[in-house]
């Protein structure tokens, strides 16, 4: 009753016509490789006849369910769904875009890192390629930008400044150091006490860098990792050598595929050495892993 009154005369008569006109029947052809080709015709919203060819592979997946559940799957549809054919009706049920959801302990931090990542990476790459050396202090900056430009003669007691200390292992720190170094270049601009000439070498602890207390001594860099790799697999592989404190697998943010490199931190450096020796050249998936100790980013 309800379904009959629901059909309104105003609900386009045209539709009624088009569906009754002679659309060629659906064709199903089995292909040699076991797939099926389904050809059917329909009218699109603009009223044009459309031929649709689909290649479909049927996969039978057996699932054991509770008999109650199995019985319910045989129930007849009712109400507004009474006229639906078996299977989901595309007008009410669609499949959404893929969502990558992997729970993670430091979810908040990672989301932030991802946002910074492209810039940070670009900065790193830039710094990697350029080998800039200061003529005054042997630091990795232009001579004109040297904080000791005014106080020191070229190539004097450069040992007073450890260039590595100024260049932290984090891009943010590097950037900070760079701006700090740039500051004194301009005359009269303010230089924070911590970055002033006499103390620049003795930089204090950084607060919460990207990987706060990362111990680079026991961290391995693994490259040539298959893009299908999962953190868990890497963890399993490396846990054989000792306690793994951290596994970081760089992943593409959009596709969720691995980017091809990973960092593995061990609790113990000896384990790391063992793992490095054993796993370098190890065949994983279709690629050969390259394992080396992570260098401090310059």
């Amino acid at each position, binding site marked *: 009753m309800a379904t009959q009154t629901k059909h309104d005369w105003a609900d386009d008569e045209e539709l009624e016509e088009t569906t009754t006109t002679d659309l060629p029947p659906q064709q199903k052809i089995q292909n040699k490789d076991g797939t099926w080709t389904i050809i059917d015709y329909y009218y699109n919203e603009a009223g044009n006849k459309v031929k649709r060819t689909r290649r479909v592979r049927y996969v039978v997946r057996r699932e054991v369910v509770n008999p109650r*559940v199995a019985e319910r799957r045989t129930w007849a549809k009712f*109400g507004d769904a009474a006229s639906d054919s078996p299977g989901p009706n595309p*007008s*009410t049920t*669609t499949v959404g875009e893929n969502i990558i959801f992997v*729970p993670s302990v430091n979810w908040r931090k990672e989301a932030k890192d991802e946002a910074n990542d492209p810039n940070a990476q670009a900065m790193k790459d830039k710094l990697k390629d350029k080998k800039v050396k200061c003529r005054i202090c042997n630091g990795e900056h232009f001579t004109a930008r040297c904080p000791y430009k005014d106080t020191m003669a070229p190539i004097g007691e450069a040992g007073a400044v450890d260039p590595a200390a100024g260049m932290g292992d984090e891009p943010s720190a590097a950037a900070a150091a760079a701006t700090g170094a740039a500051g004194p270049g301009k005359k009269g601009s303010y230089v924070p006490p911590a970055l002033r000439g006499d103390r620049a070498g003795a930089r204090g602890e950084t607060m919460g860098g990207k990987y706060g207390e990362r111990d680079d001594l026991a961290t391995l860099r693994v490259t040539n990792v298959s893009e299908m790799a999962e953190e868990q697999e890497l963890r399993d592989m490396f846990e054989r050598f000792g306690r793994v404190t951290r596994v970081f697998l760089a992943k593409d943010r959009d596709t969720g595929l691995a980017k091809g490199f990973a960092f593995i931190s061990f609790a113990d450096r000896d384990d790391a050495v063992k793992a490095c020796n054993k796993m370098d050249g190890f065949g994983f998936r279709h690629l050969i892993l390259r394992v080396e100790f992570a260098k401090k980013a310059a």
Partner: protein
Amino acid sequence: MRPILLAGHERALTQIKYSPDGDLIFSVSKDQIICVWFSHNGERLGTYRGHQGAIWTIDVDPTSTILASGSADNTIKLWDIKTGKCLQTWDFPTAVKRVEFSDDGTKLLGVTEKRMGHLGTIVVLDIKLDVEAEQSDEKAMTIVCEESKATVAGWSYLSKYIIAGHEDGSVSQYDAKTGDLIYNIPIHELNQSITDLQWSQDRSYFITASKDKTAKLISSRDLEVLKTYPADTPLNSATITRNKDFVILGGGQAAMDVTTTAARQGKFEARFYHKIFEDEIGRVRGHFGPLNTVAADPTGKGYASGGEDGYVRVHHFDRGYFDFMYEVERERQNRLAAVVSA
């Protein structure tokens, strides 16, 4: 994971329930119809028509034969799940905001709204779990909430207590046999309404969601707050997942403010927290409006969320979800494995 989008409703979703076997999903919305879907592929099994107003709430009995719904047309209706037939209608003076079957399905509670001079009440109805049976018209018990109206309520383990969440942010515990108030404890911030109450599997504890931007895990016996999950947005719903120790919170700014902000700022995401460590471990985007309801699959394989945007999104978790463990959990598991193999 690719969520399945169910577009059976034309207005905002109000509640979603899984059947106890996890194979059916019941959804109700303000558009006056109830839909039932198969959870594995999103196929619609049917609809239940008959309500004359927005439907606020729905519940399935433990045997999945009878459905109860409460609506703004001041009725509770019982339905035959298989055929979609309405079995019984009870009339009340005001709208019904929440219904829930007891553990064994022999009792149904309903929370009625405070309006037009009527105080908010919690009514208890006796149910015969048989499609053929004649249901009694009489209420078995009525609890009147004089202080602050109840917004949500449910049955504790063994139907021993009725637990209610109130508009003023307090939670009370009533004796389910006599209807006497045992405790009333201010749990959430004062006058921040409790919007949802969902049970753990054994009903010994439950989770409440509140407009005060927190969800809390509370024990049924003494209403002790076990855990608190802070969020950055008013919450509409919270649920406890099975098999994994997580909770899922749903919320977003109030529906009336939605048009003034972009979807990105609206915080229309399902938030996953670790149940024990209280850390936020991830979010799932997708809705265009606030999430009004979230429900966890009793089999632990997925969850469904319903939004102000009228969509139900059914998610089946990927491997990464099942693999996720804290370091301590992993170590414990390794230790246990070592003991077993030794």
